């Protein structure tokens, strides 16, 4: 896996929660590693889809508080999406690996390039389902926050 450089950039990134399908096939393994890399890069926070499946209340509450729910599915079975929807969670982004050029099985092997393909697709927003996040940013935030923890608009101090 690519080593990620830690830095303080991206402090205005929306709070995303990532649910990978974590299936047994190669695409499920790729997704898990991609979700870890996305977490390390500051894109969002990987969360446990199996825990979501059993209806963990705290996890569902956290997901509902996030700015965006990102679902990563390996194949058209859409297990992660179905689990999320069964708990009332609707994704802002939904990526299916077999639709971005990766092949499911029969081999369990994968490369760093496969993981990077998924990570890049997420950063590019290839799985975006609507523009709600964009309009939220434009209307409410306008990128004027200065990275402090007060969550208010600090443009007046500029």
């Amino acid at each position, binding site marked *: 896996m690519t080593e990620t450089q830690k*830095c303080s950039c991206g402090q205005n990134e929306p709070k995303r929660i990532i649910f990978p399908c974590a299936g047994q096939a190669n695409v499920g393994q790729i997704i898990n590693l991609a979700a870890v890399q996305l977490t390390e890069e500051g894109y969002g926070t990987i969360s446990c889809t199996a825990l979501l499946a059993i209806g963990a209340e705290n996890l569902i509450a956290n997901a509902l508080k996030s700015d965006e729910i990102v679902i990563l599915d390996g194949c058209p079975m859409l297990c992660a999406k179905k689990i999320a929807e069964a708990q009332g969670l609707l994704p802002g982004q939904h990526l299916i690996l077999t639709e971005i050029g990766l092949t499911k099985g029969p081999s369990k092997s994968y490369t760093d390039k496969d993981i990077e393909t998924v990570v890049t697709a997420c950063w590019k927003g290839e799985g975006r389902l609507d523009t709600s996040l964009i309009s939220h940013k434009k209307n409410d935030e306008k990128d*004027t926050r200065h990275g402090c923890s007060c969550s208010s608009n600090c443009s007046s101090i500029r």
Partner: protein
Amino acid sequence: MRIEVLGTGCSKCKRLFANVEQAIKDSNITAEVIKIEDLDAIIERGVMLTPALFINGTVMAEGRIPDVKEIKAMLTE
């Protein structure tokens, strides 16, 4: 059109630059894309959080990475 990506060269700045390049390609427009990595130059522009994206001198995003679709919308505004 003049597009500037401000950031010190970390992975997030590279992600933003890649998104900008993709958006320009998808939009089929001609634009001058400039990468500004010098910290003093970044601060001089009033940027407190990187990466930042300027289009024709106007800050469009600061401290986050807009995705390709959002950048395409910015390019047509």
